[in-house]
């Protein structure tokens, strides 16, 4: 994998809003992970606000970045997506100092907890429904998620 290719992948991650991406090509493997947001991470702007999202906003970008999105896992139909059943805040770990439930590249089995979505202290543990490998985490830790928003992409076994 050339430096140019890695740069392109980084660009894909930035433009698509994917939080973490792992690509394996032959013996080369590269994992790109966006750093966590700070401060107002549990806040969201009202949907009606006309302000554009901040540069670090984790929402998978719609139309304007269609080209980049097409290159990201979000467009891969062979993948299965884990979606949020509620509006809330995404947490990758049970506590701030605990390791994440799963990491990109890990194999998961049905019933395995992948993350927590919190909505006003209603804690919703999201479980894998199928066996497979996590190929992308699509939202950043501590960021807001919408109903039905894709959280993880899993490549089924």
């Amino acid at each position, binding site marked *: 994998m050339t430096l140019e290719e890695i740069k392109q992948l980084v660009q894909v991650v930035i433009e698509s809003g994917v939080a973490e991406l792992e690509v394996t090509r032959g013996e080369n493997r590269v994992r790109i992970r966006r750093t966590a947001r*700070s*401060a*107002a*991470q*549990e*806040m*969201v*702007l*009202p949907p009606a*606000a006309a*302000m554009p999202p901040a540069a670090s906003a984790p929402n998978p970008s719609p139309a304007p970045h269609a080209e980049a999105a097409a290159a990201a896992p979000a467009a891969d139909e062979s993948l299965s997506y884990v979606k949020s059943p*509620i*509006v*809330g*805040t995404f*947490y990758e770990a*049970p*506590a*701030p*100092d*605990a390791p994440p439930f799963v990491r990109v590249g890990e194999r998961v089995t049905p019933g395995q907890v992948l993350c927590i979505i*919190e*909505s*006003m*202290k*209603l*804690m*919703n*543990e999201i479980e894998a429904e199928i066996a497979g490998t996590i190929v992308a985490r699509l939202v950043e830790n501590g960021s*807001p998620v919408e109903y039905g928003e894709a959280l993880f992409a899993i490549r089924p076994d």
Partner: protein
Amino acid sequence: MDQFTILRLDCVGSTMVEAQDKPPGTVIVAEEQTAGQGRMGRSWYSPRGAGLYCSIVLEPAQPAPVLTLALGLATKEAIERTASIGCDLRWPNDVLIAERKVAGVLVQLQEDKVIAGIGINVNHARFPAELASLATSLRLVTGVEYSRELLLANLLDSVECYCELLESEGSAVILRLFAQASSYVSGRRVLVDEVAGVTDGLDPSGFLWIRADNGRRLLVRAGNVRPR
């Protein structure tokens, strides 16, 4: 839910864990918790015999986040009926007396089931130094000890009542009751994690609006709301 089945245990790690595989209507009550749970991996101080530590398994028609506001209201009402003292609610469901936390509510959603963990500081005579300025108990406020049995009975009554109200009337009535019961819903200077601002009402889902000091209006879905 017509009736609750109360399962009394002595010392447990957490009533939330004991309630995991129990059917709706089950109430787990423990004398002591060695690993009482709070939000995001925090602990709930649960010394033997001093507090009411329970988890209630519910099966609401529509498990919505507004349920956590209803459970806060139910806990506040149960305390007020038992001890005849007024409480405040800090969004989403901390129960306060004179700005100190007297009860906490944590809710876990499991498919169609909801496990509500409710901890109430009843007869604590003191708290560890790190909690002393944040927490209080009914006894510390009034100087009187209370029956945890009576408090539990009142709590289950209130929980049933507010759950029925939510199901029959919908979330709007819960939001109105919460706004009346909580000094934190509007016009309150707060710090939410690292963002400072003034509370500005609830949205239709029960999320808290904040007018941040930087001029933005923000919607809080989860986070620590603290006075400042």
